[in-house]
């Protein structure tokens, strides 16, 4: 049996949220029976184990309980039921920075932080220069931490955590802060830790980072563990849940079809009946590099000789990735009175995975100009099995030439 670094055994955490904070004794005395509260189960019977030397990801939307879980693993919070067994020295970076004392200098804080991680003064002396070098705060190490920028703060926190020789490193979202160069440095250090066989527990809202680093993941949803296993499958489930939650805001974005037609204005000569996006045959999920199609069903009372279809693809994070205009592409379309299905096909879609939204429009000039535009008219899933990062998958060749 593999040795376990962290063993989470049936952890349940209940919080009591008071309607109004009856914190003072006066209020307690005046309203003895009125301490209304409702119970929130931040974690419900979560159980999994992290083998020694593995990199483990925790995925979950805001409020899914991942921060609570992480705090429990670190021992900052105690579970209501269950327990967490941690084998080995654990260094953690929870949210922004470690616990620093603002009045103290960076130097003193390094020592204080080290002591909290269980290091002796001599042990901190030995790694102090490495910590300062890693944080790149040589000039400011004797400045009080309260004058640090948030970037400096996180740099020092990360530098301490990775230089105190932890056997288990817990990182919460922190790789999202700091400038890109420092982020890269942190990631390099995380990879180095992986190669050295240390255990890493990694929480992120960025599935890209999780896929890149982790060997297995758990997905939390409203305090329950809904998945434990392969990162790509976990990411798919995480995204699915994220979309379900987004439904209230978006309208009804399912993977394939979306019947999104608000009652057309009476005078409009045409209206969009439905929009479908995805695999050209099934309108299901698209694989990165595979073909994709966006199909618009249009109801028109007039004929147009030179109409054009507009398609905009929006990334999971809301970035407009591409805007295609069929007229500009040299493919004007003809619209007949009645129902017309306009399909735009993309032979090789290089986008990386995630839940993508599609905005569509149809426009035509003439006596009765047509301009239809529908935001988030459809959505489709892109799946990706590779390891690349970013927004698109690019092919590349590499040569090495001696000079």
């Amino acid at each position, binding site marked *: 049996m593999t040795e376990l670094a962290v063993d989470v055994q049936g952890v349940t955490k209940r919080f009591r949220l008071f309607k109004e904070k009856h*914190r003072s004794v006066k209020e307690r005395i005046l309203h003895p029976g009125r301490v209304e509260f409702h119970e929130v189960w931040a974690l419900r019977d979560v159980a999994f184990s992290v083998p020694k030397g593995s990199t483990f990801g925790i995925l979950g939307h805001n409020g899914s309980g991942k921060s609570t879980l992480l705090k429990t693993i670190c021992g900052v919070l105690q579970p209501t039921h269950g327990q967490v067994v941690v*084998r080995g*020295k654990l260094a953690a970076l929870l949210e922004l920075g470690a616990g620093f004392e603002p009045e103290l200098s960076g130097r003193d804080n390094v020592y204080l932080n080290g002591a909290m991680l269980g290091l002796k*003064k001599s042990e901190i002396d030995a790694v102090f220069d490495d910590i300062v070098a890693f944080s790149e705060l040589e000039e400011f190490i004797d400045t009080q931490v309260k004058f640090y920028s948030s970037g400096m703060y996180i740099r020092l926190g990360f530098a301490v955590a990775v230089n105190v020789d932890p056997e288990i490193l817990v990182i919460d979202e922190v790789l999202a802060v700091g400038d890109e160069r420092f982020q890269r440095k942190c990631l390099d250090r995380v990879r180095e830790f992986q190669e050295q066989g240390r255990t890493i527990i990694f929480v992120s809202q960025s599935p890209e980072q999780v896929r890149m680093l982790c060997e297995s993941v758990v997905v939390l949803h409203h305090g329950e563990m809904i998945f434990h296993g392969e990162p790509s499958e976990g990411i798919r489930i995480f995204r699915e849940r994220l979309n379900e939650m987004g439904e209230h805001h978006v309208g009804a974005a399912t993977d394939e079809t979306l019947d999104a037609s608000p009652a057309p204005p009476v005078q409009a000569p045409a209206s969009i009946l439905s929009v479908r996006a995805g695999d050209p045959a099934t309108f299901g999920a698209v694989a990165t590099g595979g073909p994709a199609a966006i199909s618009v069903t249009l109801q028109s009372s007039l004929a147009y000789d030179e109409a054009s279809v507009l398609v905009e693809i929006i990334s999971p994070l809301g970035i407009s990735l591409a805007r295609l205009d069929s007229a500009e592409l040299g493919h004007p379309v003809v619209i007949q009175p009645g129902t017309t299905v306009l399909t735009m096909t993309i032979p090789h879609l290089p986008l990386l995975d995630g839940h993508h939204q599609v905005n569509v429009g149809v426009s035509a000039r003439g006596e009765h100009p047509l301009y239809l535009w529908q935001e988030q008219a459809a959505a489709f899933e892109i799946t990706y099995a590779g390891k690349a990062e970013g927004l698109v998958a690019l092919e590349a060749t590499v040569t090495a030439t001696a000079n």
Partner: protein
Amino acid sequence: MTNAEGPAGLTSSAAGGTPKVKVVTSGVTLRRRVLDLSENRELLASLIRTEIKVKYKNSILGILWTMVAPAITLAIYWVVFGLLLKNGIPDFVIYLASGLLVWTFFANSIVMATAVIVARAGIVKKVSFPREILSIATVGSQSVYLLLQWVVLALFMVVLGHSPDWVALPLVPVAFFTVLLYAVAFGVLLSAVNVYFRDTQHLIEIFIQAWFWLTPIVYSFWHNVHGHGAAVLSWIYLANPMTPVVLAFQRALYGRPIITNTETKVPEQILPPWHLTSFYGLLGLSIIGGFVLLGIAIRVFSRLEGNFAEEL
């Protein structure tokens, strides 16, 4: 990125020997907690240094303020009670200071320890360690101040030519241990309670003030309390753990159970005429009570600690 020293560094910790096992659960035994505390001695020392450093950051005199302030206070008392409001007790300022300094330590320790968990929320929410160390460190830094203040008192005694009772002097460490025990116990208990009831830190100040007057610091236990005649009153006084502490300090440092009133020229018994073993006995009882209280305090603290990170 991988290199030779990387894996070597690993063997030193991750693979070397059996790793430390830590269990995060709500059911921690008292024994385990005490062991955790003793494992974190280094952190305690670090926190005490930190606290002193922060307090005197950016001040020129720094920690010397701890001595300047009581020196001035004692000088004022000497003028007020020695020259203006003569109460007939010779070297009254020494009598007063023997009880007052240790009381101030006790009061400051409790008041400041009560607020410490809330005040250091930043650390409590981010790092895992036995949090009662924060309360204990507050008491620890106050002890450092007390030691420095005793130096001031010693100087005063030299200047006034008032020698302590050398035979009774071993009472001082025993009495100091007693007061330390109670300061830690109350500090740990109240700091946890204060997270949930923020009124605690205000209530305790009032409570401490009342307690001050119920402890024979500015008046004489033997003359003003015992001399009143009601034996039950004496017993109530002695149930106050601070009474034996203050009496022991007065007995050792002021050292004169019977004095001749400088005004009336009549001899007066101001300290109990007991044999020294009675002082030790009373302190011993207080120490037993103190350990019980400390046990309760750590138990309550560990119960309440589980939700600190959310309550703060």
